[in-house]
C-alpha cells in the first residue's frame, strides 16, 4: 500500500450567489485592486489515501468528493493529485 496525497477543490456552481466571493470582491477596490473580477470562494480539502495504486486511490477520492466533500445540488468539485506543497 502507498499513501497518495490529494486535494479536492469545491466551489459553488456558476449562477448561484456566492456571499463570500461578493464580500471579497467588494473589499478589493478599497485596497487599490480594481482589476479583479469573478471572485468565487470555496472549500479546499487535503488528505492522504492509502491504496494499492493511484487509479484505485483516485476512484475513491471521486466517490468521497461526490458523497461527502461536496453537495452536488449546488457545488462542483475538482480533484488534484499529489500537490506540490
Amino acid at each position, binding site marked *: 500500500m502507498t499513501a497518495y496525497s490529494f486535494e479536492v477543490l469545491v466551489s459553488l456552481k456558476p449562477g448561484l450567489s456566492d456571499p463570500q466571493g461578493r*464580500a471579497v470582491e467588494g473589499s478589493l477596490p478599497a485596497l487599490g485592486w480594481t482589476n479583479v473580477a469573478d471572485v468565487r470562494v470555496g472549500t479546499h480539502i487535503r488528505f492522504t489515501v492509502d491504496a494499492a495504486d493511484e487509479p484505485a486511490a483516485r476512484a475513491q477520492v471521486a466517490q468521497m468528493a461526490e458523497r461527502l466533500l461536496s453537495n452536488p*445540488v449546488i457545488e462542483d468539485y475538482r480533484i488534484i493529485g499529489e500537490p506540490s506543497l
Partner: protein
Amino acid sequence: MSATTPRVGVITFPGSLDDRDALRAVETMGGAGIPLWHADADLHEVDAVVLPGGFSYGDYLRCGAIARFARVMDEVRGFAARGGPVLGICNGFQILCESGLLPGALIRNASLRFVCRPVHLRVERSDSAVTRDLVAGEVLEIPVKHGEGQFVARPDELALLEDEGLVVFRYASQGGEVDAAHNPNGAVAGIAGVCNRAGNVVGLMPHPEHAVDPDVGPVGGQPLFSSLLAAAMARV
C-alpha cells in the same frame, strides 16, 4: 398521558443544541416528546420526527453534511417515504436538504454574519405537516438564529419548486410583504421554509420551538406545533 397523545421524536446529533427546547415545545403543546439518538436504528414508534437546530458536527465542512450519514437518518428516510410527518428546524432543515429529502440548499448569510432576531413569516400553503392549522397569507412572528440560512437553488430547480408550490414560508414584513428589508439572510425569493411534494417533510430556518412560551419570546411557533401534533395524531 393518554394513549392518544401523539409521540414526537426529537433527534439528538452530536452538536445538536435546540433538541431539549424542541422536546419542551412538543410537551408544552400537548404532545409526548421522545428523545431519539443519532446512532440508533430505531425511531421508537414515534408519530412524527423533529430534526432540531444546532451545529451538528460543528457545521464543519458544510452544515448537515456529516449528520446526514447518521444511522438514524435511514429510518427517517423510510418514515418520510411512508408519509410520516418530519420537521427540520434550522440545522435540521440543512440536514434534510443535504439528505435530498428537501430541495435546495442553505449557504452563508448574505451579510456573512450570524443573525439572531425575531422575524415575520408569511404562510404560503396550509396543507403541509406544520401549517394545517393555518391559512395561506397568515403572518407569524418567530425568531431566527443562524449563520448559514440563505436558501439557494439552481434556477431550474427554483422554478420547479415554485411551480409545484413547495415553498411553505417566506420572510415578510408584519403586514405580509415579502421584500429585501425583511429578509434576514438574502434567501432567494424570501424563502424561509420548504416542503417535499407530499407536504409531509418540512424544513425551515426560523425556530418555532423558541416561539411557544410567551414569557421568553413571541408565540408564532404554536400553530406550527399544533399542526405537527395534528399530523402526528392522524397516525396514532
